[in-house]
């Protein structure tokens, strides 16, 4: 069921984005990339992905801002947002909850964990509709 889902990978580090991309593609997802917050939102408007893997630390608009913008917008709010960040403490997760994020993956990335979290969010997102 997962294979027709579209995932937007947002990371200013192109190598990281590429790792996530090839991994997710190998799992049968359709993957779109963006390398900063603004273009991530522009891509969202265009393709309406099912899930966004969103890096937190980016120049310009950071991941929290992007997440808040997504979650406050009436057409985009249903999109599942999974934050990707090096900081995995209580405060950061709390920030994530306030920003309306749906889930959290801690860097360095464990691809198994990414897969698990992508799957469970897509499943939950599908249920909600």
């Amino acid at each position, binding site marked *: 069921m997962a294979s027709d889902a579209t995932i937007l990978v947002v990371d200013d580090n*192109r190598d990281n984005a*590429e790792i996530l991309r*090839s991994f997710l593609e190998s799992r049968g997802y*359709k*993957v*779109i*990339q963006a390398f*900063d917050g*603004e*273009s991530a*939102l*522009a*891509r969202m*408007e*265009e393709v309406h992905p099912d899930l966004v893997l969103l890096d937190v630390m980016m120049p310009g*608009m950071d991941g929290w801002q992007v997440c808040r*913008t997504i979650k*406050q*917008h*009436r057409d*985009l709010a249903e999109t599942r947002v999974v934050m990707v960040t090096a900081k*995995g*403490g*209580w*405060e950061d*997760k*709390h920030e*994530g*909850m306030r920003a309306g*994020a*749906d*889930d*959290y993956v801690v860097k360095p990335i464990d691809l198994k964990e990414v897969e698990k*979290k992508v799957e*469970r*969010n897509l499943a*939950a997102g599908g249920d909600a509709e």
Partner: protein
Amino acid sequence: MRIVATEADSDLLDVLQAAAGDLDAEVVIVPGTAEKDGKLIRALRNHPQVVFIDASKIDDFETLRAETHARGIALVAACHTPEEQTAVVNGNVDEWLDAGASVEEMKARIECALKRVHRAESPEVSAQVVEHLQYEELLYDRFTGFPTLPVMLERGREILEHTGSLTILYIEFVRYSKLEEIYGWQRLDEVLQTTARAVREFYNDQEGARENVLMVSHTGDDDFIFFTEVDDSDPHVEERINTLARGMENSIRERLEKEHGEDVAGLFGIYIGATTLYRNPKVRTERMIYRGIREAQHVARSVEQRERTRKVSELKELLRDEDVFIEYHPIVVTETKEVYGYEALARGGPRGLRSPEVMFGVAEEANLIWELSRLCRKRAIEGIDENLDPNQLLFLNIDPHDFRDPTFRYMDVEEIGVDNPERIVLEITERTAITDYPVFQKYLKEFRAHGFRFAVDDAGSGYAGLGSIANLEPDFIKLDISLISNIDTNFMKQNLVETMMSFANDQGIQVIAEGVEREEEYQAVKELGVHLTQGFLFHKPKYVGKITTEA
């Protein structure tokens, strides 16, 4: 810049190299032909800006096009035959050219393809999209779908100019500031949605009934404005406006009580102010409308003020008559569901002060907080033997003000009637405990010496980190309801509670999940290993006598 190219005949590649030289680009040639499409796609991982293909060597334009599009790479194709041209155009490449093209044309095509691709990615376009997304939110309210003030100002102006007058109803929707703290912002959002629906329905009814109610909007956080036109010749204008205001107030209140219960509804006050403007050609219309809105708001505020004064005198009577009662909310061991202790929650006898938040809020404003706290503590402790088994603990909410109350501060044990402090857990909210930290630590030490235990209440509702919670050395941490409600479907909350559990287990602190209302929430909390659970799921609170006015 980097250009990845397929193999092609040498003339074509020479032209490409020359054009690339002019564009200051490096050309990387991927060897192999049609069946090696995969190789080309792998080459995309080195982040080229342009992919150049010889159309005769590619089978599957669409896949290639999708790949380059997803990565924001421009795709340019050189064609030898009209059939190839049709194929690449159908395959949706960014630009194509004839295989015999000049260096100039090659250059122009590459630049054009780059522009086309980057239109979607260029900072200006992205910034516009982002701005647009953000502005859209501002024009129409997301709860009601009503226009916001800037949009409706124009309508107000029209009414005023066409009919000569405009009546503004300002509906002030006051919530006790603690609503969000107690129930979380999600709950507040739901409440606002209910309000919005009630206002919307009321508006529709009015619109159907008479033509004079024209617009409604949502301003700021949670206030509404009605613009209505009045008939000058009607001698009962004022009365009609009053009826309208009261009608709306009632319909909102009924709806809130029905959907969210008396407790939540009790946390809201609805106050309506009205003002009527008459056209004055000497004054700019917009300015008049803004002034009118301020006037109407002012009227609403004075209504609110009168209401407050009334509540303060109600509270004074309550204190005189000792008219409070206590609800004991059970806290159970998550695994076994056996009752571990009770949290005492005081409620006011008079209907308007039933909600503890309102009652304490009024007491705080009226400077009667010590008296009220003493009364509530006394009541809670009086009931301990009657309502609790000897091995059960009593959880008492302590307001930071209480520490400045001499009778409490010096643990005048007789005064507050505690026989066995080791059965009492004092709950201090995270917010004040953390901001007033040095003072608190000193108090806590003294109380601990008496045998009292401590719980940090509402953990996770504010910005406190785990380090500052640890510094208070609590015996219990109560997870805020905002972390628990819908935890079964919210992975972010699960992540948070997971982090809290490993911290608490390290520190030997017991964690209590507050506000467990559904079986699914209970299961989630249990799986996460939360030690204790509180909420309406298992036990309704025990209502304990001494309800003087109810009898």
